[in-house]
């Protein structure tokens, strides 16, 4: 498979997953704000922190009001990580590999893009935000489902899943990071109704509330972290995502699991095995934020190694200047 094609399928899936996650953050926060006691200030800045674009936001909007943040994260074409920008990028990638992916996949990306574009043009999202963000989430799920049942589970499919899983692992870690940091300092709130509401919001933004309840029952911050980070079965848990990503990476290269023949396999395998044997108490004692921060950085290194291994192919006799700009370096 052409390196560029692999790269495009990888990013097509990453961008769709990213759009879905942004919709999750906003939707849950909108709900959360409804439940806060009267007089509490709305918390919108953390959402921008989650996507990592604080500087750009500051520059373009200043104050983190609800309208500003939603506009920035949803339709702002100057924000490369807004839902609209993600869909545009996903569609461009899909178009460039139209003869490789199934026509059903292309149609779904196109329909998804048109839906967001029309919503942006009509400007009615704030009137019925929940309906819109649910639609985004469902359109993403539909894409994943269509991909699963219409594309042969060949090399291209594995590159797609690799992109999707790495993106999801990254976003789950960011949701947890921001909320934990934001919610934990209020010692007085621990165990109160407000605390419960906020933790359930964290879970809901990863569609994890029901599955958490089945596993742990009562809401406890450390268990929420445990579930979202280390669970092996929940599809949005970081650990689960890495296991899936690793499976795809090895399907692509043909190396047996547990071994490595390239940098991408080495880095991803190491990161996954860290989670295999990690314990939540230890992580919290040593600093959850530090752990998550390091996780995100290592994940970026995995992305860079995938790029180096499969895309940035250089003839040995030539300098690296031949490689033209790729999206691979745009992690996060």
């Amino acid at each position: 498979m052409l390196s560029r094609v692999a790269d495009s399928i990888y990013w097509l899936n990453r961008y769709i997953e990213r759009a879905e996650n942004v919709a999750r953050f906003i939707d849950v926060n909108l709900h959360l704000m409804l439940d806060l006691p009267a007089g509490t200030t709305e918390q919108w800045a953390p959402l921008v922190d989650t996507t990592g674009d604080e500087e750009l936001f500051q520059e373009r909007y200043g104050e983190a009001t609800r309208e500003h943040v939603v506009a920035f994260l949803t339709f702002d074409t100057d924000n490369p990580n807004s839902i609209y920008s993600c869909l545009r990028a996903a569609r461009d990638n899909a178009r460039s590999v139209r003869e490789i992916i199934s026509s059903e996949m292309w149609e779904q990306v196109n329909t998804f893009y048109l839906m967001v574009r029309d919503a942006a043009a009509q400007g009615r999202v704030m009137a019925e935000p929940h309906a819109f963000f649910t639609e985004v989430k469902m359109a993403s799920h539909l894409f994943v489902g269509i991909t699963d049942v219409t594309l042969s589970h060949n090399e291209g499919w594995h590159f797609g899943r690799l992109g999707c899983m790495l993106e999801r692992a990254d976003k789950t870690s960011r949701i947890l990071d921001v909320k934990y940091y934001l919610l934990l300092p209020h010692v007085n709130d621990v165990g109160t109704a407000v605390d419960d509401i906020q933790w359930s919001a964290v879970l809901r933004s990863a569609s994890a509330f029901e599955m958490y309840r089945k596993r742990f029952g009562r809401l406890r911050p450390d268990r929420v972290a445990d579930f979202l980070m280390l669970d092996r079965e929940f599809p949005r848990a970081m650990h689960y995502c890495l296991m899936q990503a690793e499976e795809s990476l090895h399907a692509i290269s043909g190396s047996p699991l547990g071994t490595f023949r390239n940098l991408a396999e080495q880095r991803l395998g190491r990161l996954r095995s860290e989670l295999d044997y990690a314990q939540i108490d230890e992580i919290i004692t040593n600093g959850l934020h530090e752990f998550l921060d390091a996780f995100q950085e290592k994940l970026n290194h995995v992305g860079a190694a995938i790029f180096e291994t499969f895309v940035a192919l250089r003839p040995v006799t030539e300098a690296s200047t031949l490689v033209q700009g790729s999206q691979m370096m745009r992690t996060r």
Partner: protein
Amino acid sequence: MQFTAYDTAGFFDEMFETDAHPRVGSALLVQRIQALPAGELLRRQRAAEQALLQMGITFNVYGDAAGTERIFPFDVIPRIVEASDWVLIERGLKQRIQALNLFIDDIYQAQHIIHDGIVPAFLIQSAKCFLQPCVGLRPPRGVWCHITGTDLVRDRDGQIYVLEDNLRCPSGVSYVLENRQVLKRTFPQVFEASRVRPVDDYPSRLLDMLQYLAPDSVTVPTVVVLTPGIHNSAYFEHAFLAQQMGIELVEGRDLVVTDGFVFMRTTKGLQRVDVIYRRLDDDFLDPLTFRSDSLLGVPGLFEVYKAGRVALANAPGTGIADDKVIYAYVPKIIRYYLGEDSILPNVPTYVCWDDTERKHVVANLDKLVMKVANESGGYGMLIGPHASSAERAEFAERIQAAPRNYIAQPTLALSRAPVIVEDHFEGRHVDLRPYILYGQEIYVLPGGLTRVALRKGSLVVNSSQGGGSKDTWVLAGEPNAC
């Protein structure tokens, strides 16, 4: 829907001899259409459009940022070319391509045709599409123009003319193949009885031709289609042809030159490429040889090509024969190389660098069509009878300023074919672009793209300027009973 009110006055009609009498090859189709229940033809037209939409048959419009993809308008009534007309067209095209290939080969080598005084040297030197780096080049198997899409038109008296040769990267063949898929479903019975010649084997023939170009040392050649990328207006076609041939669609950045060969970057390492069907203009092929600002091409590609280690189709440099001033010399070119008269005539052409001809042109701007020597796609032309006097005056100044760059031709009364306009038929002007492959031998695809100027009275059939298309049925003989 009936043809009773259909008006053929003033033009050659492709389907009817007179208002009431269809041509021999069309009679069956006309009869069938008129027998359809009311509303049925419109339903089939809509079904055909829906099918094209679902197949994703679209083209991009330059300079249109929002929703750059459009459906190429399609009319469900096929254009029929009778067997006797086709015999002439096929012979004429083979003759023309053979002569033009010899001409290009000569121009980049000994230039006998210049030394013998047939074509003036300054016309070659001043041609924008003459490529200095190609001088002395011997392309694989001696062929330059592997894929040609010649534009043919018919005048009021039924005479067929060659309008343009299109020897560089002609597009549109994907519509020929897709239109046919749709039409087979639209008129299955008439199609069968009409003895329409098939076009579906074009991708296989194209692939055979491309493989034939591979260096002798290669047993299983790797052939790729090179596209400028998704923003190119013909991107759909590039992807379609690659898919139909089962080969990779690559962009310039997928290819790399090293150790004297061209390779593509794959997830498993570098893989050697032997033949490139490039849909990228000469200028952009290789920044080291041609335009240095090209980001679409492959640095070093031309050197590998010159060394015979990769084949390019078409060869760089064929544009010299697309120059509209050189076009005027094609009858002489055919006579010079083949010793024959042209089977398909040129449209009479005035070259403005010649003082006498220029004076005639400037004095008759209101009767002529003026064209720029190096443009295609219907850009930069002026249709004298349809232009305002201010536009004509401005064009006259441009001609006087750079006479070499302009030609003029009489305004042809292009033939018409019926199209569906709301609930009835109206005649619209059409042309025909057959596709010719030149590999081991010259092959003319029995079919082609019929382009229709959908705007009433318009003579411009280009897709970028409001044109649409029809399926083209080349008949093997007279139709059977249905």
